[in-house]
């Protein structure tokens, strides 16, 4: 099973979809499995509920608790297990989550205020109705990289980026993830772009004035 780390891109995909306030899977993941340039496929878990009930750790635990219904030996499921198998999916090694508060309700769930919590995983799990991970004796038996805490830190990662990123989120429990993906608040773009635009405005005006010193404005 691969060691899992946070991915900013995946959290942005999760954020973009959470903002739609819909309790259903992101259709883009199906239409275009390469929504994230670095991964061939992206998987997704969604939790929705009222804001008072929301807690990232609890939401993820809810998914993991599906383990009760899953039978590894027979690879069978008694009710819903897909969230659990995605969380522990052996070849998924990147995760990005985001939560969004929907004051106007969540389509397909509630008309009252609700929170949509989305986690995107890459590469996607739940493929070909296979088992989520191999159980072949010792941990990391099929690992070509280093083995830390019984998790494989493989070096196979897209675009040459190291699979072992400094942001630590152990496999199956990305609970260190901030609930709102607040690494990068979206108003930050605005706070950068607009003042830059103002600066550009002054520079352009100054350059034009320099180029045309005789410029004149009628009142």
């Amino acid at each position, binding site marked *: 099973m691969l060691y899992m780390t946070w991915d900013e891109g995946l959290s942005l995909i999760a954020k973009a979809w959470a903002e*739609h306030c819909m309790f259903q899977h992101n259709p883009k993941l199906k239409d275009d499995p390469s929504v994230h340039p670095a991964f061939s496929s992206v998987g997704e878990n969604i939790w929705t509920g009222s804001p008072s009930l929301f807690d990232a750790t609890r939401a993820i635990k809810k998914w993991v608790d599906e383990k009760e219904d899953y039978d590894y030996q027979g690879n069978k499921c008694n009710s819903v297990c897909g969230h659990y198998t995605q969380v522990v999916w052996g070849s998924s090694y990147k995760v990005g989550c985001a939560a969004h508060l929907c004051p106007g309700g969540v389509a397909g769930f509630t008309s009252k205020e609700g929170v949509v919590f989305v986690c995107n995983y890459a590469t996607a799990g739940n493929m070909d109705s296979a088992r989520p991970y191999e159980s072949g004796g010792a941990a990391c038996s099929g690992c070509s990289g280093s083995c830390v805490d019984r998790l494989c830190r493989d070096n196979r990662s897209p675009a040459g980026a190291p699979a072992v990123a400094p942001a630590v989120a152990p496999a199956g429990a990305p609970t260190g993830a901030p609930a709102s993906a607040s690494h990068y*608040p979206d108003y930050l773009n605005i706070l950068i772009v607009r003042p830059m635009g103002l600066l550009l405005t002054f520079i352009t005006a100054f350059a034009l004035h320099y180029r045309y010193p005789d410029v004149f404005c009628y009142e």
Partner: protein
Amino acid sequence: MSADQGPVTSMDVDAAFLKSKRGILKAAEMVTLFAAFVCFTVASRPKYITATVLELLITSLLLSLYLFKLNKRLTFFFWPLVDVCNSVFAVVYFLVLSLLAMTTHTVTGTLVGGIFSLVLAALLSADGYILFRNITFNQPGGQSQSPDNQ
């Protein structure tokens, strides 16, 4: 960094500017911006709230520049050009923001805010266009009458 010409007098207010076409446009921009700000606040979309607050700040600074005739004192910049360039940037910027707001809206507040942003873009382009028409690039400065003033 100002007041390099003549004795410093008390600030005179150019109330006539408020009654001019561009003064009215600037005031309308402020009102529209405030309406958009209220909408985005109701919808609690921090990105758009930030954008409208910043723009309110910039517009009010420009408005007070003309209102207190500071453009006559701070002559290091040629203000009409600054104003036009600012309008051009703001039009593009608010067009993008309003389209973003309207396509990703989940609550009515964001949608209405997006519509106000679109109105703002229209007001800004009118403002910039009117001012740009009054600017001439090759006229010797200072001559107030000109034969080829269109």
